[in-house]
């Protein structure tokens, strides 16, 4: 008999507690974002596809077209080519392509780069209708930033 009433009391109290929780939540601001209309700032730790770093001093890339990233890539999705330019000793970068459909975001290329020329981009709005749209020309992306 004591259990009967204590059940009723405890149960009733827990029901009221639950209603208090939801009523509080009802008047708190919403935490979700209406995604395509508004976007939130992505965390700097986000690892998107790789990108060339823009060197603020020289206003160009630091890449020396050594090809280490191309060789170290486990999925062989990076394609680097350099060319000789008149008046300079070393090769300069002529082509840097990434096949993002194969990339597994392992980050080996970023770690292995001798000149720290690579970074992860913050791009997360990645959607397209064809596979070819994910074959990025990374050098072109950098050149767009230089201007």
């Amino acid at each position, binding site marked *: 008999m004591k259990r*009967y009433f204590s059940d*009723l009391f405890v149960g009733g109290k827990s*029901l009221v507690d*639950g*209603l208090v*929780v*939801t*009523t509080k*939540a*009802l*008047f*708190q*601001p*919403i*935490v*979700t974002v*209406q995604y395509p209309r508004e976007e939130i700032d992505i965390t700097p730790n986000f690892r998107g596809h790789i990108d060339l770093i823009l060197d603020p001093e020289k206003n160009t890339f630091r890449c020396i077209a050594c090809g280490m990233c191309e060789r170290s890539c486990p999925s062989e999705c990076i394609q680097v080519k350099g060319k000789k330019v008149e008046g300079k000793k070393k090769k300069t970068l002529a082509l840097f392509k990434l096949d993002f459909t194969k990339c597994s975001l392992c980050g080996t290329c970023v770690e292995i780069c001798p000149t720290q020329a690579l970074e992860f981009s913050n791009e997360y709005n990645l959607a397209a209708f064809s596979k070819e749209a994910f074959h990025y020309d990374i050098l072109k992306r950098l050149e767009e930033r230089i201007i």
Partner: protein
Amino acid sequence: MEIISTLPPELIRMVFAAIIIISFIFLNAIMMGYLERKIAGHVQRRPGPMEVGFHGILQLVVDGVKLVAKELLIPINVDRTFFRLAPILSFTPVILPLLVIPFSEKLQARDLNLGLLFIVSMTSINVMALLVGGWGSNNKYSMFGAMRAVAQSIAYEIPILLSMLAIILMTNTFSLKEIVGAQQKIWFVLLQPIAFIIYIISGVAETNRAPFDLPEAESELTAGFHTEYSGMGFSLFFLGEYTNMFTVASVATVLFLGGWHGPTLPYGEYLGIVWFFLKVYFLLFFMIMIRWTYPRVRFDQLLNFAWKYLVPFSLANILITAVVVKL
């Protein structure tokens, strides 16, 4: 216009009232659907529908158009008569109680002497719809939903009747108008708090909503009795559920919350409907909050609760009421 003048005025009044009530029911379903989604969203700290119109206010209109345009699929091997009958059966008996509910002192389609009994008997048919739909679908989930609906109806009907009986003992009448009239000075919720709580709990069970949504438990029975329904059939069930909610809330308002009584307004005998609707929608808001707060009860928990707590408490309540009234 020759014909209309020969018609009896009472009949014209009834037809008008019926038209207004039926159109109101559709409006109510749209509003309730919107409210339900918005409240559900905000309880979970998300905005709810936002795309169609200002803050998604036209969402239910779009949904309604979609449902009407959809094909009513009749699966093979179902009982065709039952399958078509069930949505209509779920919709009709929940409209009829609105004909006797006094929205305001003079806004009432028909005042029956036995109004409360009329409402009770009409809502008792409602279970039939779930049974017919669930059995006619020839689907084991629907069948389970139908059987749960029956057992649940046995659990809630007795407490709901007993809690109404306490009010009838106090007012000596079944007429809803007179019951509201008796609450001129004090609302019955203050005199009969236990009956009110019992009525609300059983009323939520009667509308088959969470936490008592056993017949349509979507995580256990896909959609219970209306698993097989699509398009118009589904939307009639949907409409029936919201109308049932409205009926339960307005009966609670009439019995316990003083109906149209409130601070005096000009044209009080008509504008009392404002207070009535405020109370009804407060109760509906409360029912929606309940739905998005509590998890579904298990079946034996429901039966235990109804038979061990609701029935004894309502019986004791009636006993005390009878003694106090006769003192």
